[in-house]
């Protein structure tokens, strides 16, 4: 699963197709392209990445000359932003900013739909200020300009600006709902000297579950996959869910909530999990073999804990699979088992007859795993 934050250039393109005002821009993937744009300086050169925190990492630069722009390009392309290599730079005219505000449309679970967030002070420091005003309206068809206006009246004395914000918010709601977006955040939303609004930045998060009906999400997922580690690629293909963590306890589990519960239990006992690895998407010999492969190859992992509470899953079948995997392995990393629930008694009998102990409780299994990890 991916958190599908689009790079700024694509977020803005999505907005531009609905005629939401964005600055004129150029995209460059090579230094040679810069001179062909006929730029009028000053401009801003920005890393075209999907990762946050770009400004603080030197990914946004004001440039007065072509030489400045070339230097900014070279520097940005050598930088990794949250581990991500820029696909290029985005160049825009340096705007005469009268004011920066904050406007976002985002999914609001409590409202069963969307909420609009508004703060009269936008820009880099929005997070350190008071929380933005929130107008939660639910399904897109429930957006009511007059209700949002009432919220804004407290914050925004300039009626003309207020009406422009309301009109833009309505457009953002339309884009979010029609384009399967989780969040469309404009920060800063720039007020120009003549009072017009223009999107200084765009943080657009698409819904990866909607990939089957959006060709552009397919392309974006492909790009996100290019950034994946080899491990994540293999897990994705095998329908396992992997989130790498910093610890040394290899954790194989089943179900998102239970996998988190086991992570927490490992930490509570003084250990650190090496991963969140949920095999419930593919509880077959292939799935478990891959899970073991990854943890055996990961040199940080000192011990492996297999903790499965079988609901729909037959743990005796899992036991058979695991016994087979263990009989073929060359690694000596200790493995601790805890298979309970459906088929649990048969799983215990199978594991015991193959010389493995099956712990009856999560807590005992975690304690045993940590003990073995310390002994290695």
């Amino acid at each position, binding site marked *: 699963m991916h958190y599908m934050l689009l790079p700024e250039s694509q977020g803005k393109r999505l907005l531009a197709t609905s005629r939401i005002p964005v600055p004129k821009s150029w995209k460059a993937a090579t230094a040679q392209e810069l001179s062909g744009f006929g730029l009028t300086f000053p401009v801003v050169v920005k890393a075209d990445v999907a990762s946050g925190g770009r400004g603080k990492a030197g990914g946004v630069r004001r440039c007065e000359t072509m030489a400045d722009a070339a230097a900014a390009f070279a520097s940005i392309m050598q930088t990794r932003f949250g581990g991500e290599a820029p696909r290029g730079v985005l160049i825009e005219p340096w705007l005469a900013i009268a004011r920066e505000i904050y406007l976002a449309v985002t999914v609001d679970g409590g409202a069963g739909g969307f909420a609009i967030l508004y703060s009269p002070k936008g820009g880099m420091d929005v997070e350190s200020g008071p929380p933005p005003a929130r107008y939660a309206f639910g399904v897109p068809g429930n957006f009511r300009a007059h209700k949002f206006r009432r919220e804004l009246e407290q914050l925004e004395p300039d009626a003309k600006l207020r009406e422009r914000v309301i009109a833009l918010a309505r457009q953002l709601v339309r884009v979010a709902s029609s384009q399967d977006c989780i969040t469309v955040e404009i920060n800063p939303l720039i007020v120009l000297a003549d009072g017009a609004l223009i999107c200084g930045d765009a943080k657009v998060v698409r819904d990866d579950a909607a990939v089957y009906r959006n060709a552009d999400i397919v392309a974006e997922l492909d790009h996100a996959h290019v950034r994946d580690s080899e491990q994540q690629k293999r897990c994705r293909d095998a329908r396992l869910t992997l989130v790498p963590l910093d610890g040394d306890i290899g954790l194989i589990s089943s*179900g998102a909530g239970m996998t988190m519960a086991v992570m927490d239990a490992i930490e509570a006992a003084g250990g650190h999990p090496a991963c969140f690895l949920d095999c419930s998407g593919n509880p077959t010999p292939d799935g478990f073999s891959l899970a073991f492969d990854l943890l055996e190859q990961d040199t940080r992992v000192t011990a492996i804990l297999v903790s499965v509470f079988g*609901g729909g899953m037959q743990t005796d079948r899992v036991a058979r699979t695991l016994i087979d995997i263990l009989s073929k392995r060359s690694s000596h990393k200790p493995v601790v088992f805890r298979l309970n629930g*459906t088929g649990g008694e048969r799983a215990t009998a199978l594991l015991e007859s193959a010389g493995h102990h099956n712990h009856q409780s999560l807590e005992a299994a975690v304690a045993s795993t940590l003990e073995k990890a310390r002994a290695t």
Partner: protein
Amino acid sequence: MSVLLDWATRVAILGITGRFGTFSARDLRDYGTEVVAGVAPGRGGRTIEDVPVFERVEDAVKERGANAALIYVPAPNALDAVIEAIEGGCSLVAYPGDGLPVADAMEMRAVARANGANLVGPNSPGLISPGKAKLGFMPSFCYRPGALGLISRSGSLSYEAAHRLSNADLGQTTCIGIGGDPVKGLNAAEAIELLHRDPETEAIVYLGEIGGSDEYAVADYAQQGDAKPVAALLVGRTAPPGKKMGHAAAMIGSYADTWVSKVAALEKAGVQVARSFDRLTDVARNSLAIARRDYKAVALTHP
């Protein structure tokens, strides 16, 4: 009594001709649940597991008296199937599937509310009233009848939690899997309100996680003067920020999403929070003791 499900529940399974739908029909019936119809467009007229299959929900309601629907269709067809079930006359609908676009979840939730129906899901095992009926695919052996109402965002966690509670003689009235997505049919606030009104439910156990705002709705409830005692377990204490932990909604994007912030809010509201899984039965038992005004039985639980 119980909420949503009881002996009068008559289930139609949409997608009964699929492997999982057929398995589920048998599993529900083994639990004593009345499976009265299947629905599969283009396949009406046959029977599966002795259950007559209809072309549309309307016919299953008219001819077999179906009043609840369990829906096993792929995500791209789910919105239409849920709407058909609701508008066809089922006042209770469970859609367990995952991978549903959030825009579709919003729409199905809105249709359920407009029609006064209760929708459980997406991304949930469904719901069960132990000893009475089930509408979902949770493993039956984990549950037994009792006085606790259980609400969970996670299927896998709820199975083991219910199993631990049942083994500790802490049975359940109804267990509702509200699911792991950000937008749900029944959310925590709505599920808790149902349990609040159920005279047989004496105390409530809430299983939550990082991300989303459901835990704050639980805290709001617990602060009410007439609230039933609430016990809780939250997972994801050790999850890193910015990563989806399997569930679409289980991601830390801000401080309010964290375990620490949520546990603080719940405890401030008087919820007994288990600091680890092995304390769950203790806090659940305490909540029941508080509900029964048996204060001598309330044990200190911290840390």
